[in-house]
């Protein structure tokens, strides 16, 4: 741990290198917090982890029943339920990190005021929790794949890239919201709008061709929509690999890095305002 040598405390924020070194030194806390969250989340429940499956299952049933069965929305090549589930995997992962990551500073307020650790540890630990939830949700996919006799594509090898893109899309707003909202918390109130309305600009339970060509580009430019399409491409070779995804991924990566930079410069003030 870092305390072995000289520790210097001064008003200046750490430079980027020191900051990353600190995160590395405290990396075990990412697991510690993630494990704590998982244990706490299912404390005093009968079903425990099963709730992580039930929640996307309910969403899957609702969407499939309303849009697939009642409204008869069609998706090419893929059964509607599989289409929706593959969208939900990426979307739930995204929205979990955004919600939990943004509130993580306030949720851990008491700890932050009493114990030092790099604050980026908190959103990172939420990524781990989201990954566990994601893994549990994929269990739902197995019976559907068996029932519809659908095979997983070799594109699955791109999974690490997809999940990194997905994570960055979620961390970008988390960092920026923290930077702008630690003093005045208005942005936290905007967040639910951003997420609930965002799903209507993301092809989770509809195919993007229901949009007229004139406004379809909104979806093309929406990074999280790219991620959802990438998920389907990766799992089932559904749709074509769009090179705009890579451009968007680059932009998101840059935005995330800049966000993290400002997060680092401001994080020592979080404990004064939380």
């Amino acid at each position, binding site marked *: *741990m*870092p*305390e*072995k*040598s*000289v*520790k*210097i*405390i*001064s*008003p200046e*924020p750490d430079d980027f290198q020191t900051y990353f070194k600190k995160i590395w030194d405290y990396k*075990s*806390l990412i697991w*510690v917090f993630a494990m*704590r969250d998982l*244990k*706490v989340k299912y*404390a*005093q429940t009968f079903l425990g982890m099963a709730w992580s499956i039930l929640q996307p299952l309910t969403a899957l049933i609702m969407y499939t029943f309303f849009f697939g069965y009642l409204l008869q929305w069609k998706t090419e090549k893929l059964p509607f339920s599989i289409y929706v589930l593959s969208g939900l995997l990426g979307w739930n992962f995204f929205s979990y990190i955004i919600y939990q990551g943004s509130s993580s500073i306030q949720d851990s307020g*008491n*700890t*932050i*005021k*009493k*114990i*030092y*650790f790099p604050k980026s540890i908190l959103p990172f630990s939420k990524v781990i929790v989201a990954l566990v939830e994601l893994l549990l949700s994929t269990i739902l996919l197995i019976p559907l794949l068996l029932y519809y006799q659908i095979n997983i594509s070799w594109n699955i090898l791109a999974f690490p890239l997809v999940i990194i893109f997905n994570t960055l899309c979620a961390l970008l707003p988390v960092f920026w919201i923290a930077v702008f909202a630690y003093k005045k918390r208005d942005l936290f109130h905007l967040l639910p709008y951003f997420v609930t309305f965002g799903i209507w600009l993301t092809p989770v339970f509809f195919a993007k061709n229901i949009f007229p060509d004139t406004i379809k580009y909104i979806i093309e430019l929406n990074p999280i929509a790219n991620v959802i399409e990438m998920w389907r491409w990766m799992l089932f070779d559904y749709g074509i690999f769009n090179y705009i995804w890579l451009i968007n991924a680059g932009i998101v990566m840059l935005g995330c890095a800049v966000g993290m930079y400002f997060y680092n410069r401001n994080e*020592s*003030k979080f*404990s*004064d305002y939380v």
Partner: protein
Amino acid sequence: MSDSIAIKITEVSKKYTLNYPVKDAHGIESSEHWALKDISLEIKKGESVGIIGPNGSGKSTLLKILSGVTKPTSGRVEIFGRVASILDIGAGFHPELSGKENVYLNAQLLGFNRKEIKSKYDQIVDFSGIGKFINEPVKNYSNGMYLRLAFSILAHLDFDIYLFDEVMSVGDADFKNNSKKIVQHLIDSGKTILLVSHHIKELESFSSHFFLESGKLIPEGKISIGKYLEQIVIKQNQGEIYTYNCTINKFTNVSNSKELEIKEISLQQELNSKPYFVTDLPFNFKIKYIKKKTGYSVDILMSISNINDEIILTSSPFVGDTFSELTSDGMIETECKIPSHFFNSQVYTIHLWFLKDLNKSINYSNSLLSTENLLNEKSIEVLFSMKDLMKFKPTYKRNNIEIDLSNLNIKGALLPKFEWNQKLITENS
């Protein structure tokens, strides 16, 4: 000799921005609050430093800066060694997790890995006395169990520097005692310790003391602990300390009553021409009050507290089976004589209670005073109570020259003379 330094604080200041501006002493409105102002301090390895200060003096802010929780507005701190910053006992504990899980969580937050914790785990649990409840969620623990477990973690992990914030002010007497022992053990084993507190007793065995007041650090020597504590007591009680013969009719800490009205209190030492109370003369105090109604009697109960607000003695006429028989209304004078050579050199808080019909309502099988220093009001009606501060100088006269004992810093709440005799029984040949 930088290698022997554990903590070096150089001109550290911390400014907080207030949500609502306040006016300062000069009436200038400002939304800035300087919690610390130009603090410099060097702590050597193995030193135990106590920082004393009243609430709001910046103690916790200083520890927050040292632990890295918040950054200073200006200045610099260098820390050499592994730091345990205990700003709050059980910080980072999660109520839903079990005792065992919290041991691991807490110790990892303090910078230990699972392997290190595992090797100490049994000791931690043993010491905490939690026993078979260690797998229960800590939200079901009693406050005492919770504190014991949290403190046990700290006591068994190996740090070089310990920063404590008022650790011993929480918990029951047993816990306080235990934590005091542990802190003493850490001091003895050569650890560097910085403890902040507003409780002087916790810091008695520390190697050096500092005072923190309104964000400024004052080293001991510029001002004595006793003097400093007096200031705090005055501030906290918002009263003045009576130190000389006087008759007062304005009181600072009085509660009003429909049945009684205090007219005056006189604090007198006959034959004392000094401008302060001495201890080699008896001390009298007279209370004049108007009893507005008839049909009941009034008895007085007096308790005297030391500077830490702990009651050191209680006295009342009824202790000698004397009860007031005055039931008519009118001006009443009560006098209390306290013998000479009784008080020590410190500030005392004298608390008076005026009790209604004590003779009729006293029940010898019930407690009169509750555990707090308030009367058990269920059985006995308190008509009136008041509180004031007094200070004495312990003295005696030798060849008509007064010798002052107050600088000797003699410990103890009281300094009675008693009766001492010494005689030679057999003489050596």
